């Protein structure tokens, strides 16, 4: 039954979207994690999505999503002059992560909506299959 493939494809999307939610949570949690050196400061992380290549060549199947990896944002870090801070460096500066909170919120909403719509597709496919199984009864 080719409908089974809907579960594979939507399942891969669920996996990708949950990973995206995970990185968003990590970014939001660390939005205010300061540090004394630029190297040790947290940088915003984002997953990279791509179509599943194996499925692209096998033309009779739907194409799932895969996560190629997680990249760290190379936007400039914020430097703040706060000599009283316990983590301030010798010049009195602390480094703040380059997490853009508004962008992360938008990412979060997009990920959770995509997750929901994939679940809905799986539900519809399930109904179709159940009805097929009970055909002629």
């Amino acid at each position, binding site marked *: *039954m*080719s*409908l089974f*493939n*809907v579960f594979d*494809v*939507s399942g*891969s*999307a669920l996996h*990708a*979207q949950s990973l*995206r939610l995970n990185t968003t949570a990590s970014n939001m949690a660390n939005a205010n994690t300061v540090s004394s050196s630029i190297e040790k400061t947290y940088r915003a992380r984002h997953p990279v*999505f*791509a*179509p599943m290549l194996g*499925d692209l060549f096998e*033309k*009779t*199947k*739907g*194409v*799932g*999503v895969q996560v190629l990896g997680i990249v760290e944002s190379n936007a400039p870090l914020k430097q703040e002059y706060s000599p009283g801070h316990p983590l301030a460096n010798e010049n009195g500066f602390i480094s703040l992560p380059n997490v853009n909170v508004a962008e992360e919120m938008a990412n979060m909403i*997009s*990920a959770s*909506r*995509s997750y929901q*719509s*994939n679940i*809905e*597709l799986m539900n*519809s*496919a399930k*109904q*179709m299959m159940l*009805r*097929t199984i009970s*055909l*002629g009864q």
Partner: protein
Amino acid sequence: MQFNFEKYLGLHEPALHLQSRRAQLLAANVANADTPKFKARDINFREVMKQAEENPKGQGPLRITSTQHFQPPGFTDGYEMLYRHPRQASIDGNTVEPEAEHSAFMENTMRYMSSLRFLSGKFNTLTTAIKGQ
């Protein structure tokens, strides 16, 4: 009396097959709604059904019957896979519009269910004929 199952079930059987294939394509589109540069694909249901009507099972113009046959690019099982034109272009080159895909999927599901209902009725007719009551 010769009874031909394929004739009796008519176009509903190829329609079911096609609708389940289309469900898969649309699911792939929704799954890739956030993948950069992904192009949404679909089949022209009316065209493919017309093909199925004109060329009954196994006699389609582009059917692969041997592993050594070539698959023409963009075709699967003899259906031509088309690219969807997005109404609003997006900056990352992705042409999936979730609302369009969702409505297409829902419509496809309803069509699948009605094909099933028709087939179910046909089978019930047969059972009644066999039992004679």
